[in-house]
């Protein structure tokens, strides 16, 4: 039994995902409260050098095994279960991502550990782990107290700042032996499929100018595209625009499209159906233009404009170009 806070490092194609740093930063804060250490759990094959980017951890537990070369829900869950069994940390933070989903609930059952998922915050309060989950489509926050000496929280990506946990350094690396027969799995990795190239990844853009039904016609797209260029951002859209095939599916923001969290989300002629808002509400700055003052987009926007977009957009583009 320890007071350590474990963070399961997520990596794909040789790159540690930012969510790992977010969790490490939070873990530092929590370990300070619990009086334990921050331990990063790195599972893979031949990726010991990655430990250097996990400098925010006091220690890296590294398990190297051919069966861990690629993420595999079965071998990774067994490996993590083995590590948690041996170490019994106070708290284990796992990203609530595609990979993390396959691990958190698995070790909860395998190691009989309490689990709270979809967390956007974790605290240690009077010695108890308290996690706040974002449930019911973001409409309700649920604060749970986790019992016992060891528990697991899976945390939504984007909940904490990356900076606090992104430190290079040379944490102590402890190599852990893999459990026996780790390669005997019923799930076998075959290959990775890369996305069809060509289009921009709107989830990686700092600035998005997003268009909705209000632009009325495909012919008006270039006008908005020009604004996006002047701002140094990319063009995104709400669903009707993609349904009309004016823009490819890769540009669609919202529930059935992509979730984005840019520094600026500039909504042009978007009324703000909940499905759309779900995909963009976390943007740092939201500016919306819509002639309807009652449009729900103004509930999440920081700044709103009800003047005609066909007047405002060109005026803004012109001024930006100087």
């Amino acid at each position, binding site marked *: 039994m320890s007071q350590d806070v474990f963070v399961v490092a997520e990596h*794909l194609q040789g790159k540690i995902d930012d969510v790992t740093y977010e969790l490490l930063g939070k873990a530092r804060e929590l370990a300070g409260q619990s009086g334990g250490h921050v331990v990063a759990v790195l599972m893979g094959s031949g990726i010991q050098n990655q430990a250097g980017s996990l400098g925010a951890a006091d220690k890296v537990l590294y398990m190297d095994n051919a069966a861990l070369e690629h993420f595999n829900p079965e071998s990774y869950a067994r490996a993590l279960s083995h590590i948690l069994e041996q170490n019994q940390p106070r708290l284990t933070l796992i990203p609530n991502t595609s990979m993390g*989903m396959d691990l958190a609930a698995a070790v*909860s059952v395998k190691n009989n550990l309490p*689990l709270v998922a979809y967390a956007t915050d974790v605290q240690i309060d009077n010695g108890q782990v308290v996690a706040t989950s974002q449930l019911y489509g973001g409409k309700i926050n649920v604060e749970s107290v986790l019992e016992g000496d060891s528990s697991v929280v899976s945390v939504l990506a984007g909940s904490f700042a990356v900076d606090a946990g992104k430190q290079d350094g040379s944490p102590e690396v402890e190599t852990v032996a893999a459990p026996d027969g780790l390669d005997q799995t019923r799930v076998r990795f075959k290959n990775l499929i890369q996305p069809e190239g060509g289009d921009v990844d709107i989830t990686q853009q700092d600035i998005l100018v997003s268009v909705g039904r209000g632009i009325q016609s495909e012919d008006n797209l270039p006008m908005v595209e020009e604004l996006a260029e002047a701002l140094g951002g990319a063009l995104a859209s709400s669903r009707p625009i993609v349904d009309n095939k004016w823009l490819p599916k890769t540009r669609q923001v919202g529930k059935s499209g992509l979730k984005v969290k840019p520094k600026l989300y500039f909504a042009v002629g978007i009324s703000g159906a909940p499905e759309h808002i779900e995909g963009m509400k976390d943007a740092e700055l939201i500016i919306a233009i819509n002639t309807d003052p009652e449009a729900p987009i103004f509930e999440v926007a*920081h700044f709103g404009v009800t003047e005609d977009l066909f007047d405002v957009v060109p005026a803004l583009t*012109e001024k930006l170009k100087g």
Partner: protein
Amino acid sequence: MNIIVPVKQVPDLVEELEINDDGTDLDRDYLSYKLNEFDEHALEEALLLKEEHGGTVTVIAFEGDDTDKVLYTAIAKGADRAVKITNDLPPGTPNHVLAKALASVLSGMEYDLILTGVQAADDRDGQLGVLLANYLDVPHVSVVSGVAPSNGAVTVQKEYAGGVMAEFEVDLPAVFGVQAARQTPRYAPVSRVRQVMRQAEIEEVEANDTEANIGSSIRRMFKPEKGAGAEMLEGSPEEIAEKIIKILQEKGIKK
């Protein structure tokens, strides 16, 4: 291939959700429930697999509001069997308990594949499919978007962020958390649902194990702070443009 699709009713997010007086649960007296949208995709994928490769689709739900309508609708879409678990497991029961109950029911059934929705709006204690797989000790993959049988196993695609996907070969039986079926979930014409309601039968079973260690309790539920709403920018288009540029400069987005 015999496929089981456990489905779950979740609070309908179209309605405004209210929190009860204790602040520890939703005010369930006024809630309406809706089938978890990801479960709709799991069912669709199961029906597509059945149509392509034969076999059966069995839908299992926990007794509750509108469960019968959900099950009849599933049959109208093409499911072969509908099973209702009759234990008193009210809405909001933690997934660990539901998974345990399902595991005890499923251990008495023949199946090759279990398809669940990848997640649900109320998965506070983890996703049902992964919990179920681990109670059953069968392999699992979540966030699956394509399932194809190959030589006694199945090949599935798991979605990662940024559009990358991993392909896995998985021995049967297995549990998959379905992110999206290959096509939009089909429509169940109401006349067919009504016909099914008159003719089809829902089997009832009782789970003999509903004990699971949840290890957490809800201390408080609250609504996220609602933004004060947008500050409206007024003036001529040029004036508005200038105001926007000023905001962008203040936020360090534009120099």
